[in-house]
């Protein structure tokens, strides 16, 4: 080897080493393949092909959540979700589950603030089974009074097991939303009042199906070990002839700004320990304040290192726990209407909710005054990225995010650039967001104490 060649070679080694060193400290970006198009009937279709494992998720997201269910019918969107498993023209009652499981898959559905989804994860050579099942119920749901009665019973038990027979009864969702919001669409109990769930009629089911369960009001996502061109043909075959329906009316979700703090005192017949929940109205997702606010939520309560956790659980030993986040059911991307940041804590006997709130306010005041350190901000961004990767790790998680981006933004390709606005957030923006949104007049506080404790307090003459 000549001297020059040797030098070049050394240089190359150095360059390669530098590149390697660089690559070990640089964030690895997401690279999710996305094919996106619409059928003539308006159905949005997202396909994401990868071959990590021989599995695929087929998901249908309908643009209807419990915010838009009719008045007098709380819990109806969720009851309807159950009806989607009660059979269609070619699939008998509950056979949806049979077909999916007997083909090696699993399935579920979920009703959220702004969407209702249905999904099955299958061995990838069974992808067409998922498409056929979803198309059959989108086109020809079979609705019978007997099945409605059966599912009213099932949903009633679901509400009993998850809400009514539980200590706290999900007050950090149901009661907090009822108090924090003024527009009924946003404030009402999405799990539903038992009497209203059981008052639903077969005509309600039929009309809801016709209004909201049309291809032009839905997204179909296929994520996993498939061939895009083959899947496109299957989608065409099973979905293209399902007729579009008139677009449902846009719901009024407008929420007047809150101007005064709301405080609610509750007693709990089943709980042994007192708890509190707080909710702060958040800026809209398209507001320039949103990315900073999302990171601020991480900084305050994202994990055990967060400021509120450290203050309440560790330093002051006021609460047993601290939970909550930006979207009670999901993340920054899977809702579209008005939202509150929620926080829930079980606090220790001998203390009061006011003490806890005072400490939370103290943390915010400090943050508004001194801001956050560069490291704290950088860490929040790392944490945010890591959570996003967790989300897209499974074929279902990926399908979920792609579906929401298609449903709410008409742009699933954003999946590979979702972090950009969050990565640009500055420490000053965090400070400004805290000052603007984390104020008493923007919040609702519920203090929920065991009933017996309240009686004791009464006996002593109360506070």
């Amino acid at each position, binding site marked *: 080897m000549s001297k020059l060649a040797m030098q070049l070679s050394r240089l190359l080694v150095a360059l390669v080493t530098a590149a390697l060193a660089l690559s070990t400290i640089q964030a*690895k970006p997401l690279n999710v393949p996305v094919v996106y198009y619409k059928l003539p009937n308006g159905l949005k279709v997202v396909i994401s092909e*990868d071959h990590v494992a021989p599995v695929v998720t087929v998901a249908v997201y309908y643009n209807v959540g419990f915010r838009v269910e009719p008045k007098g019918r709380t819990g109806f969107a969720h009851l309807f979700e159950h009806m989607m498993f009660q059979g269609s023209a070619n699939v008998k009652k509950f056979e949806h589950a049979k077909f999916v499981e*007997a083909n090696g*898959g699993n399935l579920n559905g979920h009703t959220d603030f702004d969407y209702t989804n249905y999904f099955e994860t299958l061995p990838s050579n069974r992808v067409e089974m998922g498409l056929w099942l979803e198309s059959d119920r989108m086109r020809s749901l079979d609705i*019978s009074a007997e099945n409605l009665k059966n599912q009213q019973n099932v949903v009633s038990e*679901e509400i009993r097991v998850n809400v009514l027979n539980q200590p706290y009864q999900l007050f950090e969702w149901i009661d907090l939303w009822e108090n924090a919001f003024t527009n009924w669409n946003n404030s009402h109990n999405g799990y539903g009042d038992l009497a209203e769930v059981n008052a639903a009629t077969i005509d309600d089911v039929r009309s809801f199906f016709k209004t909201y369960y049309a291809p032009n009001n839905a997204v179909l996502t296929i994520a996993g070990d498939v061939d895009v061109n083959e899947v496109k043909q299957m989608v065409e075959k099973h979905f293209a002839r399902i007729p579009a329906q008139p677009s449902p009316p846009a719901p009024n979700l407008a929420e007047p700004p809150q101007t005064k703090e709301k405080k609610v005192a509750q007693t709990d017949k089943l709980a042994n320990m007192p708890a509190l929940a707080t909710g702060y109205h958040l800026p809209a997702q398209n507001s320039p304040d949103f990315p900073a606010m999302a990171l601020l939520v991480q900084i305050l309560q994202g994990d055990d290192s967060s400021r509120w956790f450290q203050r309440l659980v560790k330093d002051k030993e006021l609460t047993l726990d601290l939970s909550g986040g930006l979207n009670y059911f999901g993340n920054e991307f899977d809702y579209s209407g008005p939202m509150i940041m929620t926080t829930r804590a079980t606090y220790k006997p001998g203390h009061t909710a006011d003490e806890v709130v005072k400490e939370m306010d103290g943390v915010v005041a400090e943050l508004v005054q001194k801001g956050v350190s560069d490291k704290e901000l950088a860490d929040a961004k*790392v944490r945010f990225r890591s959570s996003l990767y967790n989300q897209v790790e499974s074929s279902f998680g990926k399908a979920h995010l792609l579906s929401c981006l298609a449903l709410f933004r008409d742009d699933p390709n954003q999946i590979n650039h979702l972090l950009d606005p969050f990565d640009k957030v500055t420490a000053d923006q965090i400070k400004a967001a805290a000052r603007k949104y984390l104020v008493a007049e923007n919040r609702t506080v519920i203090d929920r104490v065991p009933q017996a404790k309240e009686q004791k307090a009464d006996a002593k003459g109360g506070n």
Partner: protein
Amino acid sequence: MIRTKPKQPLFALAAATLVLTSVIAASAQQKTPPAPGAARPLNLPKITERKLSNGLTVVLAPLPNVPKVTTILTFRAAGTADDREKHPGIAQIAAGVANEGTDTRTSKQIKEELRSIGGSLGLGSDADSTSISASALSEFSTRMFALLSDVAQHASFPEAELKLAKENTIQRIHAGRADPGFLVGERFQKAVFGNHPYAFVVPDEKSINALSREDLKGFVATYYVPNIAHLIVVGDIDPEKTFAEIEKAFGSWKSGATPAEDNPPVPTRAKRQIYFVNRPGSIQSAIYIGNVSIPRKDKDYFSLRTADTILGGSFYSRLTRNIREDKGYTYSPFTASNTQATSGSYVAGAFVRNEVTGPTLLEIFYELDRMRVLPVTDEELKAAKEYSNGNFSIELASQSGLAGRINTIYTYNLSKDFISDFRAKIDALTPGDIEKAAAKYFDTYHAAIVIVGDWEKVKDQVTPFGEVTIYDAEGNVISK
């Protein structure tokens, strides 16, 4: 005996109208389910096993679905009978406090380091083992291993952290005693396992308060040692490079004496018995019915697992079809086969409104007995096999799923070919195998029936099923 009857829509006219409106559109609709395509390659992960000189087993499995890495470090012993008698709950409290401080890091520094690497780190313990699970962005794997190693070797149990953890554990258990799900699970473990260590769920206040810092340091010095541990690493890794990182982080860890094997006798139940936890004000009865079953390594593992899938372990199971989809008694009925090192349990459960407590008991016993005395159909068995095989692939496609599965293999000393042999074992099962397992393990004659509910409201529906012992939420016997 067939109990379900065919359904007739009540509003036939209305239903017919709906079908009519969709006839035109439905003309192109495929009436029968599509056939599967050609089977796709399984892409089973390439798993390699290495050993450090201190005895730590290292298992590496690349799964680069996202730029993250997921690990489980398991100590395959969690306490001998001696420890359990002297210090009930010591393994749990040690697991709860080990990540609240090391010789060189405070609790807060640990949490902040995790935040910086997009990571998580948590400990959990059961009667067989203690595990530390950790994850991070893969670009920070070196820092994750360093932290994991520090917690595993140098937990310092600071007095203030221990004091807070003890107080909080006591209060958390107190809070949990309001939750019917916690109460039914706790009473079930006690009812099924009697004097076996698996009966232990949570320690009482006195045991928690009795634990000292020295006890905990002694406990981890004995049991958190590399020669009885395995480290499973899954994710966006290069096995060679990752192994070098692990060697650096864990290589100087000293091995310890191997703790004595602890093989307590497996309990047997003499009769059917009802354990009722009275929770006044309950509007549902939380019901668990079950019995002792098998250890994880038992030869009947696959047949019991598959019997479970058919009875209540999948959504389209017999139990769900019966008491949910036909009768509407409950939202989420289930059955589960829980197997550990020396024994296991089988459970069928449902949370039902007070009014149908008795009818639900009847139906669960009916379904258990039907499995015992009648063979499953070929169609049911074929579906259960597909379900198991397909969902096994789905499980292996996630980092935590794959890591958890490999961890089970090493924790219970299963065949190293468990993953590659899984399909063949499932596919070999016959209806006879299922019936035999059901007859043996769905032992309704000696079952424990655990109910958490409002005794005054449901007692008349419960007493016909057997002798009752009534407990309060704290576990005290109220009456026999």
